[in-house]
């Protein structure tokens, strides 16, 4: 392949990148190129050895590596070009892409379209400002997952996990099975951050205490973590005096949220949505920069891998159409505005009134609400939770009911059924 004639360049080869590349190829793009910084395709899937992947996409309960294998096979069969151990260092506003690896050195590309599929990374101690010393033994849950499942190291013998995100709970189970004592999972909110099935199958199954409305207020130890101080928090998430307790441990894992990884997007001049954390996209997953698309956790953090792949396929399909058909015409532009109890909506804008799937995340858990999208859609929910993304399919004919030149559409959770 000559680097000069890439039609679609996909950055990242996780569940989003591979799905986008496959779709682009299937939709007729001739030269599809995946750029991956790791030594193999699959992104984070390799370290996610637990099951629960692909229930929706494949109708089967797969582990992370199994899910990856299915896509890797397709990437190979379709003749999609792949550059491994290759780091994209820059994208410019006019879609010039610079990457580097140890074989070719710097690589300059001018793809006709680009799909951003860089995924997300974990929030770390620095973003939490936990007071105390800086000993060894503090890991993000994902780092611990890599150590235990890929590298073959157990991070410690007595572990406290801060945050009840899915990776944290899954690591609680994994470490328990490896003989580690998981002393507690500590969650600042009054409810669990991850999926219910993980609370039941990772914590309850292994009798791991879950402390809701608690947080870590201090880390102790000089060379190595020796203990952490926990405290109950009030309604404003402030520690309550007199509720402190010390827990002896040698390791603290942090499972406190994921952040879409958008340094490259920023360089390219892509507008980011502070609520979702990633690029502002329309229903084609095109950003404000023509020809730059985005899909998966780089846009917003999904609950399920299946949705990551599906969303990236939308980006891949439209990215493939651009080199074939030139500029893609769009009709109008409607901005979705998050209202009462709505944290984020993706896509943030719609432009041409084709079928759209909206991914909506609420701010707070609430019972008996009605979700409204302008006056074209409403649905009653017995309960909505921040940890469970809401998916709404709107068909073209329903969107037809939008009045001509509607420029803004309010999305909100109304109290009462």
């Amino acid at each position, binding site marked *: 392949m000559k680097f000069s004639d890439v039609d679609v360049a996909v950055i990242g080869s996780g569940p989003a990148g591979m799905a986008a590349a496959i779709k682009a190829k299937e939709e007729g793009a001739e030269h599809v190129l995946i750029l991956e910084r790791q030594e193999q395709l699959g992104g984070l899937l*390799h370290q996610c*050895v*637990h*099951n629960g992947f692909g229930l929706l996409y494949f109708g089967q*309960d*797969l*582990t*992370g*590596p*199994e899910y*990856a*294998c299915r896509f890797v096979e397709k990437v190979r069969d379709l003749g999609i070009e792949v550059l491994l151990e290759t780091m994209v260092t820059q994208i410019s506003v006019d879609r010039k892409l610079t990457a580097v690896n140890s074989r070719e050195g710097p690589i300059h590309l001018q793809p006709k379209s680009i799909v951003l599929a860089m995924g997300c990374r974990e929030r770390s101690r620095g973003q939490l400002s936990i007071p105390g010393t800086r000993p060894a033994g503090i890991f993000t849950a994902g780092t611990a997952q890599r150590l*235990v*499942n*890929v*590298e*073959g190291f157990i991070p410690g013998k007595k572990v406290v996990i801060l945050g009840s995100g899915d990776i944290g709970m899954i690591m609680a189970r994994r470490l*328990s*099975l*490896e003989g580690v004592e998981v002393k507690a999972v500590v969650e600042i909110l009054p409810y669990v951050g991850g999926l*219910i*099935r993980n*609370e*039941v*199958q990772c914590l*309850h*199954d292994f009798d791991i205490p879950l402390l809701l409305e608690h947080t870590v207020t201090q880390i102790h130890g000089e060379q190595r973590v020796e203990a952490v101080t926990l405290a109950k928090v009030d309604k404003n998430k402030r520690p309550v005096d007199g509720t402190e307790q010390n827990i002896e441990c040698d390791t603290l894992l942090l499972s406190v949220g994921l952040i879409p990884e958008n340094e490259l997007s920023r360089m390219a001049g892509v507008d980011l949505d502070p609520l979702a954390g990633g690029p502002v996209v329309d229903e084609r997953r095109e950003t404000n920069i023509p020809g730059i698309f985005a899909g998966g956790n780089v846009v917003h953090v999904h609950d399920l891998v299946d949705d990551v792949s599906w969303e990236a396929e939308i980006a891949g399909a439209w990215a493939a159409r651009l080199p074939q058909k030139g500029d893609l015409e769009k009709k109008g532009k409607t901005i979705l505005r998050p209202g009462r109890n709505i944290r984020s909506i993706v896509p943030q804008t719609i432009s041409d009134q084709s079928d759209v799937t909206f991914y909506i995340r609420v701010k707070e858990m609430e019972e008996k609400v009605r979700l409204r999208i302008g006056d074209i859609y409403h649905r009653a929910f*017995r*309960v909505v*939770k921040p*940890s*469970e993304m809401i998916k709404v399919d709107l068909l073209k004919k329903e969107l037809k009911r939008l009045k001509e030149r509607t420029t803004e559409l309010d999305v909100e959770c109304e109290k009462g059924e």
Partner: protein
Amino acid sequence: MVEEKIICIGCPLGCETNLKIDDQGEVIKITGYKCKEGRQYVLEEYRSPVRVLTATVLTQSSARPLFPVRSNRPLLKTQLKEAAKALAGVKVKPPIRVGQTILSNLMNTGVDVIATDDLTY
């Protein structure tokens, strides 16, 4: 008669259900569920809770020290820890294809342990 609480994991609602159980261990009454599927799940979760075991085993590969595996069918929840221990001594040799049996009839359960990734060298 005893009572047992089981959280349904069928959907995001996460209904907390209550089971009344007689001295023979039979379920007399279930309350707290909101749908038929939920009732069925809770009943099965009471009678024989099962889980798929996922783990890693050691390799003789130069490329990676660990290799991911899982049980091809769910095991009884109570067997999970013992099953994980049984895998501690297993060491696999490449090449291995995803889906290939690594250990058959794990602890005489009739369940096999299978590869969940490819290992070429």
